């Protein structure tokens, strides 16, 4: 395992457990995520990888264990989760852009309403990021006028506008037509090169191998194997991972 002992973890997950009635979706997961980490989480459907990601910003409430984000226990009932969520950008499979707002409004509503930015300041920052993903000309469009790939790039920019310390991606390319996957992956690659801390749940194995610095294999609500990408894909240790990779690669 490639854990650098000198760095302080950005996210510290301790014995995270999630039960839906009798079903155990997450079974005592522990992992440290460090600043600059690009962690890819792969595994068969139903393995709990999306649930794990959604527990990190408490969109899904865990039923046991703790999550420390920047040293603060965010699973504590008393903590103001809304404040911490601002620092955890999230990108969804279904984009979830706000259809009643222009792209510019989608991007600036958070910074303006939650971070007391002026409209000018928020729009300037949004424009800078739009240019970076090549969508500056769509600022005044509505989400319905965009392609899936464009929507997802906007969704990434919307999360970035809050200046998060970590970005969570929940199968960001799974709802896209194949020819649009590349443009979204390009933006994510760009982010990773920029040293953004990322946790990515995905089925894009080639992309994981190329961009990740750590890959995690989940099955039955547990972390079965973790490694740096080359070893993970070329020399899988466990039988579960070997059989999984033989099916998807």
């Amino acid at each position, binding site marked *: 395992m490639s854990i650098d002992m000198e760095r302080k973890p950005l996210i510290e997950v301790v014995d995270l457990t999630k039960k839906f009635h009798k079903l155990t979706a997450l079974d005592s997961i522990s992992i440290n995520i460090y600043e600059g980490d690009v962690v890819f989480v792969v595994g068969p459907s139903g393995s709990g990888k999306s649930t794990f990601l959604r527990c990190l*910003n408490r*969109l899904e409430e865990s039923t046991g264990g703790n999550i420390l984000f920047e040293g603060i226990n965010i699973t504590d009932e008393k903590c103001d989760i*809304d*404040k*911490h*969520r*601002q620092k*955890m*950008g*999230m990108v*969804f499979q*279904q984009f*979830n*852009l*706000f*259809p*009643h*707002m222009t792209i510019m409004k989608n991007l600036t*509503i*958070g910074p303006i*309403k*939650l971070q007391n930015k002026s409209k000018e300041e928020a729009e300037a920052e949004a424009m800078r990021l739009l240019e970076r993903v090549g969508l500056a000309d769509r600022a005044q469009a*509505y*989400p*319905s006028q965009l392609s899936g790939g464009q929507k997802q790039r906007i969704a990434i920019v*919307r*999360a970035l506008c*809050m200046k998060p310390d970590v970005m969570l991606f929940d199968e960001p390319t799974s709802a896209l037509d194949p020819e649009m996957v590349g443009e979204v992956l390009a933006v994510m690659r760009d982010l990773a090169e920029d040293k953004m801390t990322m946790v990515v749940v995905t089925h894009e194995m080639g992309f994981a191998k190329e961009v990740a610095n750590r890959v995690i294999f989940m099955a039955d609500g547990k972390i079965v194997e973790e490694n740096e990408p080359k070893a993970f894909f070329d020399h899988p240790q466990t039988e579960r991972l070997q059989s999984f990779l033989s099916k998807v690669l």
Partner: protein
Amino acid sequence: MFGKLTDSFLLNFVKEERWKYITDGLIITLEVTFFAVIVGIFLGFLVAMVRSTYDKTGKLKVLNALCNLYLTVIRGTPVVVQLLITYFVIFGSVNIDKVLVAVIAFGINSGAYVAEIIRSGIMSVDNGQFEAGRSLGFSYFKTMLYIILPQALKNVLPALANEFIVLLKETSVAGYIALQDLTKAGDIIRSRTYDAFMPLIVVALIYLLMVMLFNYFVKQLERRLRNSEH
């Protein structure tokens, strides 16, 4: 034929300035409708928020039960009976303006229907919208306000407009507590002139005109909101 109609018109509206019944009644009808709509929207919003918060989060259990009771009682009894109870039972021993009684009774009645319309609108918005709002750091309340409600209201605008049309016409039973609204005005003229056709048809036409005018404005509003159609 035409001469007969003119005579009837003169008898029913011009003689003894009977048209004043109509204008005074119209003002009462509009007053009652306008303020009842406001009460209805206010109550409806409140109840819809409680109910959908309960549906989404499981919180506000007691308030939700109260709201359910309110919806069951109001939607399960006729509005005329509610009006009579409000006037003769609840405010039976106090001297109170009848317009106010009507506003309260019709407002409370409309609130129940508005609540269910708005709640259905909230539930029609995809849960992903809610999660996107929360993930940016918006509180439950702010997510509702900025993200869910604007979409919900757009979806239910036709149903809400319909509810207000129904309310406008329902106020015509205000005569039960001897409030002289538009309908009662027509009826008073009928009893004075023994002519049923002219006053009642004119009253009906005035209602029709108001509803058509209201519909026109709603259509305009819908067209403007359609800009962001998704």
